[in-house]
């Protein structure tokens, strides 16, 4: 088994605020990777642009930080090209549910194998405190000083009705539980989506209140059947749906065949290509 330290990049100084929930996600991810025993060189860690998206900086795997809102398509491209590597994305909720939500809807349909973690802190943290799409109705932020007049997005329901095959939520404040979810997500043969409640000590203090942690509700085998899509939807849409953590839904597809890699393997010869255009041949 690889060890957690194998995934640490110590050259780059962490710039998250002390107490930031992102540390919890980092710890859970590295623990899950080590439990899954995936060598660092077979991992591609992808970040969004946001505080959370800085994770690849201090992760000693292959790392990729692209454009705000586009972590997901880039990650899908990676996973398609190199299906033997484990792609793990850490995007912010602004990135994933704001500017990038169009890609997300289609990613559920595409079901490409990768782990997509969204640090859901209710704010645009890196840009200093505007509300994100998961902010509660009337929440105030620097761009909505009188409160936002739109209800929040419900990412779990969105995932479920869009065809998500692994739909979960974790809490950055409960590292072992989150690590377990990530481990399951890594094992899943498809697109694994994890919304992660992530307290931001600088711009979303409510989430840092112990009362918030106390309000978290765990879905477990005893109270929820993760194989039942309707049950999952009921959980997500019911009271306190946005405080529930655990695996809402998981649909394994064992018949899925391992995809071919699409890495460059040299140019083709002209014989290779002439067959393709036979119908266009006119003479000779």
């Amino acid at each position, binding site marked *: 088994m690889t060890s957690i330290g194998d995934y640490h990049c110590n050259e780059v100084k962490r710039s998250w605020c002390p107490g930031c929930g992102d540390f919890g996600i980092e710890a859970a991810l590295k623990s899950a990777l080590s439990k899954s025993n995936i060598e660092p060189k077979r991992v591609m860690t992808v970040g969004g642009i946001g505080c959370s998206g800085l994770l690849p900086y201090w992760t000693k795997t292959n790392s990729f930080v692209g454009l705000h809102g586009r972590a997901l398509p880039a990650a899908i491209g990676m996973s398609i090209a190199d299906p033997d590597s484990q792609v793990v994305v850490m995007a912010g909720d602004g990135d994933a549910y704001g500017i990038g939500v169009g890609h997300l809807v289609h990613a559920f349909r595409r079901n490409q194998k990768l782990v997509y973690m969204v640090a859901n802190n209710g704010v645009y943290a890196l840009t200093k405190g505007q509300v994100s799409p998961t902010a509660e109705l009337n929440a105030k932020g620097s761009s909505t000083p009188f409160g936002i007049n739109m209800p929040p997005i419900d990412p779990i329901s969105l995932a479920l009705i869009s065809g998500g095959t692994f739909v979960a939520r974790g809490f950055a404040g409960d590292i072992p539980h989150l690590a377990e979810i990530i481990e399951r997500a890594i094992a899943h043969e498809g697109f694994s989506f994890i919304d992660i409640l992530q307290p931001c000590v600088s711009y979303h203090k409510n989430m840092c209140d112990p009362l918030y942690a106390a309000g978290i509700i765990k879905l477990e085998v005893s109270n929820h059947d993760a194989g039942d899509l309707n049950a999952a939807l009921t959980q997500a849409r019911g009271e306190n749906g946005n405080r529930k953590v655990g695996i809402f839904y998981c649909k394994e597809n064992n018949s899925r065949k391992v995809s071919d890699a699409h890495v*460059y393997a040299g140019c083709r010869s002209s014989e290779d290509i002439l067959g393709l255009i036979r119908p266009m041949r*006119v003479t000779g």
Partner: protein
Amino acid sequence: MNRLSIGIGGQAGEGVETLGHAIANLMAKMGKEIATNGEFYNAIKGSHNTFEISVSDEAALSTSTHYNLVIAMDGQTLAEEARRIVTDGYLIYDPETGAPDVSAKLVAVPFLNIAQEVAGTKLAKNMVLFGCFAAMVKAPKELLASMIDELLKNLPPEVKQRNVEAAQRGYEVASEQVHESFMQVSVKDSAVENYLMSGNSIAALAAVRAGCTFFAAYPMTPSTSILEFLAKWSNETKMSVHHVEDELAAINMAVGASYAGARAMVATSGGGFALMTEGVGLAAMLETPIVVVEVQRPGPATGLPTRTGQGDLRQVLHAGQGDVPHMVLSPGTHEEAFQMVREAFEYAEAIRGPVTVLMEKCLAEGMRTISVDALNQELDFTCERQLSNGLKRAISYEHDAEGNPTEDPQIVTDRQKSRWDKIAAIAEKLPPARLEGAEGAAVTLVCWGATYGAAMEASKLLTAEGIATNVLHVKYFRPFQPGVLEEFKKCAHPILIEGNLTAQLGGLITEKTGFEIKDKILDVSGRQFTAEGLVERIKEIL
């Protein structure tokens, strides 16, 4: 006569394009060189569309709107294209659609009736007309039949049969009226292996040849068929081909795939490219090779989706925030498109960044005869990816040589420069620009992209008329092609020809060389340049 121009006019949905392709194919099979151009309205049904075919013994570089033969599928053709039939030219028409008022040799064919009668549907009229045309070039009837068989291969045998019969009736009716052959042809089972291909099919094929393993696109006229060809071929090529949710996804997926080891390409038109500009900058920043094919149509905004133009040079050159080291090039011919798309993959590896190939609708959709030799050529420049054994770091924030973030003023400056150094280095590998045509000419036509074809042919016409003319075709825009200034020094009277309003190449030439071209032919009508059109406008200038 070693060159003929054929024009077909009809309503959208009447099969103008099918007939055009059939004729082009027939002539190509009979050993002729072909160039085609379709002018279609942006509507599925109900407007007047045209299709032009140039047929000649030597390479055909462009089409003409002065026709030796017009096939009128609708009445509007009689009023428009038929008026541009040259002396001694022919007009095939159906008396039912109107009485032609032109001095051409008339071939009256009741093709609507024949289609209805023989094939049971007026839709077969294009097959009747195909038959007429075949008769005019005295093509073997068996060839006609086998071509229709191939063309309609998805239809039931009895339908095919009725179409063949309709075509044969057309053949007979035309034979009765036209005795001399419209063009001297004989079916050569020529040893030369030739293909009749569109620019888009060529670009797609070039990607396959270059070893491209990943392709993503969102449909956009006139680039869509690149996606369609690659998708169709994907079982054979094993390329991973994706019609994705939008252009943002396409380019970011390509960057991701390339990061993971793929050779990756995307294709789009100007509007889709506008959405890709941030991704182009990303590829440059991450030093990730990707190839973009941008097929131009007239803008701004939705513009004229089905027409041609050259309005995107500057948009492409300046894609993305900051100074983006992004290579930009554009081929002049179909052969060159094949070479340049392949090269683009090699350059992308060499600069470890984005390379965009600019094409135009007229090249992308226009068909040309391509010899197998053109597809067999070796590249002058190749470059394999340098794979490191270590972990890969690609960070879109400014970073040091190891890929770690830095905001140190000196490192940041060095990194920016080092990315541009690769562009400077590749400049030395580029073939220098060179004047083509008459030595010491009185007039030089300066152009880029597919305008080359009409410019070259115009230069020949002018030279033949005693006005020695040559052509300077600029192919590389970033890095700016070496040799342009040197060639300019040899020019007595340069005239700039571009398919845009703001002389985008002209401005770039001035910027890069200080040289200003005073006389300009700028056309934004959405139609491709023709040699005769150019000759006329050049004479106005002289």
